[in-house]
Structures are given as C-alpha cells and as structure tokens.
C-alpha cells in the first residue's frame, strides 16, 4: 500500500463508525457513535472534513437523503464504506495489531 493510502487514527474511527451505522450513517450519527464508543468529543465539522477526504480517496461514497422535519427541512448526506475502504481499514488495523502484539503497556503490567 502506498504511503499516502494509510489511514490516520481519526479516519479509522470514522470508517468504523460508518460501518457500524450501516444505512443510517451521516454526519451527526457518526459523531455520536465515535463519542459513545471511543469516549472522545468530536465536532461535526471534523467528521465531515474526514469523510470528504475518505470519499476523495474512494473509501466511502455518499448520497443525499430525504429532508426531514426534525432537521428543519434539510437533507442528510448519507455515507457508505466501499470495498476499497474496507480493505484499507483492514490493512491499517492489521498493521496496528502486528505493532502492538507482545507489547506490555503500563495498564496491563499493573
């Protein structure tokens, strides 16, 4: 995999959130999913900027959803992970697993 195709930590979180959410993945649900599971406060702007970058790389694709009343009549932008995105995520996670294998971190030593 070329150097530029490796995923950053936040890109990994966003891709995993989109995968978990399935058909209901859009900016705010992705943000909530990351906050709930990773315990990290995230802004909707950061999520959109990352999704835009992932889409430019071909790792996610988006389409416009229907406008709803709870959004003040505004449409959602729904995201889905592509095959290339799943492959890139798997490669990145595998690299992390290999790097962390056998490491004794402070929390585990205690």
């Amino acid at each position: 995999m070329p150097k530029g195709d490796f995923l950053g930590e936040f890109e990994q979180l966003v891709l995993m959130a989109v995968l978990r959410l399935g058909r209901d993945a859009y900016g705010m649900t992705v943000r909530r999913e990351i906050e709930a599971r990773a315990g990290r406060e995230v802004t909707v702007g950061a999520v959109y900027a990352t999704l835009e970058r992932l889409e430019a790389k071909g790792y996610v694709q988006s389409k416009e959803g229907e406008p709803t009343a709870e959004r003040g009549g505004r449409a959602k932008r729904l995201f889905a992970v592509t095959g290339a995105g799943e492959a890139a995520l798997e490669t990145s996670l595998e690299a992390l697993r290999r790097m962390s294998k056998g490491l004794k971190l402070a929390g585990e030593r205690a």
Partner: protein
Amino acid sequence: MSPPRGAVLLLRAAVASPHREWVEGDLEEEWRVRQSRAWYWRQVVRSVIPLVGMQARSANWEASLLAVFAASAGPILLLDGFWSFILSQVPLRAGVVRGMDYLAMGLWLAGAAGAVAGYACRGRRAFVLAPIAVLFTLLALGAITGVTPFWYRAIITATIGAGVAAGGALPQGEKR
C-alpha cells in the same frame, strides 16, 4: 427555542452550499435533543476551521484562484492601504517612507497568507497557478513602486514564495 443566532450566522458565513445544508441540518437535529447553547457554539466554533479547510481542498478553479490572489497581491495591497490610511491622518506625513514595523507586518502577512494558500492549493494545477501568482504579485508590487524600496519588494515576494512552498508541503494531517 432556536439555536443561538450568532453561531448559526457564523456557520453560514464559513460554510458554502451544499455542505451548509448538511451540517446545519445535523446540528439542528442534535439541538432539538440537547437544547444547549454552549454545546451548539462549541460545535460551530470548532467546526469552522476543518470545514473551511475541506472546502479549500475540494474547491473549484475560482476558489483556488482567489486563494492565490489572497496570498500574492492581497498582503501587499492590504498593508499598503492600511499604512496609507494611518499616514493620511497625520498632517504633512502622507508621503513618508514606511518603517521597519511596516516590513515586519508585511513579512508576517505574506508568509501566513502564502502558507494558507499553498495548503489550500497543494497538488492542484500548480503549473497554472504559479504564473498567475507571480502576475498578481508583480501587479501589486507595481502599485506600491515608488513608496517602497526594491529590497523591500524583493523580500516580500520571496516570503510569499516560501510561504506557498511551506504550505504546499504540509502533510495531510488528522486535525479535528
């Protein structure tokens, strides 16, 4: 209760359509659940920079051109206009030569604006944008010829170039 008006205006000023509709809709949806002005403001303020950066990266030709103009001619013309206004308020000082503070501000503006534009335009039609940047810079320098020495114009131009190169070389980070 509506979301804080100031935050909504800030968001609308910073984010263009169609991104604006998606982001505003998302925030509105969450606002109905939370009803927290502090949360809404925090989301908007911290979202502005990544959203502006995102728009700059995916911008079309006109936006790239605007960034080049902002980086090249912008700082010089802005600074000269500002300084001319200040001096116009002082009797018999309208033609005075600018001091070192003028140079320092010019260098700072040129470097910062160059870096921002370089970052926004990196990898994007550089072979076309570079000559346009040079043209804008020469025009701006022409406008202040006679009120600034040659070495001043040369060093400002070099700083713009260095800023653009530095901004263009920045890695694509994971900033949130």
